[in-house]
């Protein structure tokens, strides 16, 4: 088992090293006047090491994280509630489902531009993350409950398990793996849309504003460094969700073995 783990980690490092070499080579080979737009990995790491020593950088990272996390949590909660409603009540399905499909189809930039008119720039990324995550979770819950296992539905009918008990302990429990899988997809989406909305609307303290400012100052090493930070943060959060889910499953399994 540990060997397998070491092997996996080694592969990840090898992949990272490969792409760093490709990046370094590309940066070395392009003409001098384009070098500004494709700095070498070393230059980017240097810019990143400069940024991480600045308190204002961490301040913006924390505020961006909070905005995205808040939008994500609201999106998951609303998605579950709407999914339950549309799969349980015909009228809710008629009213809510088309709206959800429209939200999924509308480009995120259109939402950012429209919401910019009505919502304070500090809360706009929260709203955008919410809009991106909610339909994803809604679809999973709606489909999961609508196409729910007929055998378990019959079992619930025979044993007269109805209402909230049926919803929480049979339906939502059975589709919980699918919901968590959608949440993992949703966090990536929340990061992309959240930072995009920050770039376009530039809230006072945010990663997006830093990115926009770096681009304006033609500091592309900084643009890459901030992008790298976003990627790393996104991976960390995604890994944390996966890890806490696996830990929960493992704890359950360990309990079983006692």
């Amino acid at each position: 088992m540990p060997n397998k783990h070491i092997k996996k980690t080694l592969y990840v490092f090898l992949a990272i090293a490969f792409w760093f070499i490709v990046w370094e080579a590309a940066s070395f080979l392009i003409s001098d006047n384009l070098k500004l737009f494709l700095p070498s990995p070393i230059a980017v790491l240097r810019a990143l090491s400069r940024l991480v020593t600045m308190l204002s950088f961490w301040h913006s990272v924390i505020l961006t994280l909070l905005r995205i996390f808040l939008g994500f949590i609201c999106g998951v909660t609303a998605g579950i509630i709407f999914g339950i409603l549309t799969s349980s009540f015909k009228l809710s399905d008629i009213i809510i489902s088309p709206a959800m499909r429209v939200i999924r189809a509308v480009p995120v930039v259109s939402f950012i531009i429209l919401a910019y008119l009505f919502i304070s720039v500090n809360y706009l990324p929260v709203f955008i993350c919410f809009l991106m995550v909610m339909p994803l979770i809604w679809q999973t819950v709606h489909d999961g409950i609508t196409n729910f296992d007929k055998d378990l539905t019959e079992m619930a009918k025979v044993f007269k398990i109805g209402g909230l008990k049926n919803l929480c302990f049979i339906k939502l429990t059975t589709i919980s793996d699918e919901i968590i899988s959608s949440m993992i997809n949703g966090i990536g989406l929340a990061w992309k849309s959240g930072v995009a909305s920050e770039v376009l609307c530039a809230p006072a303290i945010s990663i997006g504003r830093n990115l926009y400012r770096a681009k304006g100052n033609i500091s592309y090493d900084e643009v890459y460094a901030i992008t790298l930070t976003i990627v790393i943060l996104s991976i960390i959060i995604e890994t944390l969700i996966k890890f806490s889910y696996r830990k929960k499953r493992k704890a359950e399994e360990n309990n079983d073995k006692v």
Partner: protein
Amino acid sequence: MIKFDNVSFSYGDKMIINNLSFSIKDGENLLITGPSGCGKTTVGRLVSRLLMPDSGRITAPENISVVFQENRLINNIDVYKNITLPLEKSQLDTADILTQQFGFESIKHKSISELSGGMLRRVAILRAIAFGGDALLLDEPFNGIDSENISHIAKIIRREYNDRAKSIIIISHNKADAELFDAQILEI
């Protein structure tokens, strides 16, 4: 009392049950047997009102506890929650006693995915007994359970149902199961 009066049922054009009649009094047991595909499980589904007959009349108690042919347990909750999910608070003491009698004390907090096929079958049976309906329907109840446990479980089932004047219907390809329950045999 459970009574079928000239009951017929078909899936589309295919007649499954044709003018079936039988009756058992409260506390009596019936084993329904026959070759594969003869409609044994369909009779069970008609008794438990999961299907409605095309014609004829069925008399059966409102609350029937069922052990389905498939276990139909919920994967992401533990054994004890699976057993007690259909129960009222007042029934929990009985569930605890039955859990002990089934020897499930040590595994009651295990997740369903951790259990063997025979264990899962026993959990499904325990859930049905604990539910305590006015009659019990067992569809191929002892698949995967060893003979020692079969007689022990049958004793508990008879005590919980027959001693309270409740009927048991067993659907099985194995006629020998009738002896365990002192049941009449209906071959279809």
